[in-house]
């Protein structure tokens, strides 16, 4: 929905979101440093720099867990969790900066003031590349921050558009790779030095929650995708998607017309019906879970809008999604499963009006 790119298209929700985010980060760091300073005092105090390294490292990985929970939560409970997804990129970018602070502090504290540069120090001072338990865990941290850097650097919609949503999304799936790297980073690093069981327990619990959520969501989505949920197929290949009464006003029914087909969202608006592809051109959001607002189909994820009769975003925006042909026979709504090119004009079928067969 961008005709001219601005850094951030601010609105009240983004501001509230970012304030909550900032309060959480600052609150966490303050609590971590406060509790540390009360636990080890006097001559037993932990070095302030080490404390900052630990506070930022743990903060970043906690944030990453929350980020990785949002996708599945928003798919399992689309209505309630939508506001979290809406501004996830700010969460991601904030997390990147916290992780970057950790990385830079480590490079200064443990890597600088020596005979080689800090990055070389990280990579050459522990040579046990052949060992698992002794592996230089810093390498995993470096690899992860490089991935997160590319994600944060390309996070703006400008890049989303120029890289194409598919490439962009592939890049963003790198977050899972970064996550695995970071689990190794902590398991083979800090946990090797600590004696308390709290560390492996917390890390393990986080991983279990994330994996469970993702598995649940994946199973649910796969079930949905595998189901061809049409009531029947006419001789001409059109499919029977629903009864008119099944589709609520300003909402859609989503169907998979045939095995392997893209899902189609059939919207009811005014006295007519229109069908569009169920994939938002922004970040692939599920358009059929959206709503018609001010005459426009509105995506549930970030609010991109499309006109029902041609799948185009209203001017000055230029996004387009594929449209489909419909007809009504009695109470049944039939769909031609062959999509038109994105942005193609298809007049809505009027309800109650029999289209000629």
């Amino acid at each position, binding site marked *: 929905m961008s005709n001219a790119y601005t850094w951030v298209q601010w609105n009240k929700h983004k501001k509230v979101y970012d304030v909550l985010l900032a309060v959480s980060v600052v609150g966490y760091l303050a609590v971590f440093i406060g509790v540390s300073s009360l636990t080890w005092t006097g001559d037993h105090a932990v070095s302030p720099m*080490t404390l900052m390294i*630990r506070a930022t490292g743990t903060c970043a990985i906690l944030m990453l867990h929350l980020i990785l929970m949002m996708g599945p939560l928003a798919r399992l409970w689309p209505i*309630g969790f939508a506001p979290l997804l809406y501004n996830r990129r700010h969460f991601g970018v904030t997390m990147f900066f916290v992780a970057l602070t950790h990385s830079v502090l480590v490079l200064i504290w443990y890597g600088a003031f020596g005979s080689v540069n800090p990055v070389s120090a990280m990579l050459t001072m522990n040579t046990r590349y052949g060992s698992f338990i002794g592996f230089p865990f810093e390498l995993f941290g470096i690899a992860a921050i490089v991935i997160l850097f590319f994600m944060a650097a390309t996070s703006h919609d400008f890049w989303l558009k120029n890289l194409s949503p598919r490439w962009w999304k592939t890049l963003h799936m790198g977050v899972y790779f970064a996550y695995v790297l970071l689990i190794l980073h902590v398991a083979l*690093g800090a946990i090797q*030095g600590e004696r308390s069981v709290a560390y492996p327990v917390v890390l393990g619990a986080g991983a279990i929650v994330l994996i469970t959520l993702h598995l649940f969501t994946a199973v649910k989505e796969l079930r949905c995708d595998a189901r061809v949920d049409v009531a029947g197929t006419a001789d001409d290949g059109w499919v029977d998607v629903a009864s008119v009464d099944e589709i609520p006003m300003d909402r859609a029914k989503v169907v998979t017309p045939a095995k392997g087909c893209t899902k189609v969202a059939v919207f009811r608006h005014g006295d007519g019906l229109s069908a569009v592809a169920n994939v938002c051109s922004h970040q692939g959001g599920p358009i059929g879970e959206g709503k018609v607002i001010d005459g426009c189909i509105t995506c549930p994820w*970030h609010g991109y809008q499309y006109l029902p009769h041609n799948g185009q975003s209203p001017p000055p925006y230029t996004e387009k999604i594929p449209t489909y042909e419909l007809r009504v026979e009695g109470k049944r709504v039939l769909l031609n499963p062959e999509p038109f090119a994105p942005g193609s004009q298809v007049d809505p079928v009027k309800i109650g009006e029999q289209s000629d067969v």
Partner: protein
Amino acid sequence: MASKPDDAPFYVGYLPLPAAIRRFLLPWLVANFVLLIAVGVVIAQQQRDPGDGTWNTATPVTYEGVLTLDPYPLLRVTDAEETGGPLTVLPIEMGKRGSRERLAGLEGQRVRLTGFAIRRTGRVVLGLEAGDAAIEPLGPATPAITFAPVGLGTHTLIGEIVDPQCFMGAMKPGEGKPHKVCATLCIAGGIPPVFVVRDQAGNTVTYLLMTDAGESLPPSHYEYIADPLELTGRIQRQGDMLVLYADLSSFRRLE
């Protein structure tokens, strides 16, 4: 025929937040915040003891004694205030470097060194101040006092090679795998390696580590730094300091 409008709440970022969604999200946000803080408290509270080393970077101190350079620079002080007797000071440069270069030519000399002290369990590491005034040569030592060595036999010990600068208080904690890169950087930079043996109660004994030929730890053995290690060597007491002449072929990592 017209179906009734669906009034399920619907969120659009640029429109007001529906009350139902607010009611749904609020407890979740609060729970998240509580969880975040709880995890922070637990992790912070469970950190291991970083030791009781101190690093006074505010007030420089001065030690006078006899300097030896091989294999590592050591300043032998006969009547130190803190021990009331012999004290071996480990002079180093600030940063991750040994002091050999700056002390070159002063072998066997009486010198006065000024710097910032790092102290733990009776041992002193002295980070030399910048500038010529930090090193004051006082002429040849007469007599050449070195602490008379006392042999304590050959032993097999379990412990960890650390760099004394960080371990004694410059970085807390300055040991274990998270610190391996830094410790190796320090030792490769000329800071003398120290072998730390810890008893059940957590008390530590530190040994200055060298080869059985009395040479500095060779780079081939840097890979053992900061790992749990078993090694065998001759132990000597030299004044207040324990020196471990280790058999390089006896190094065995315990994992």
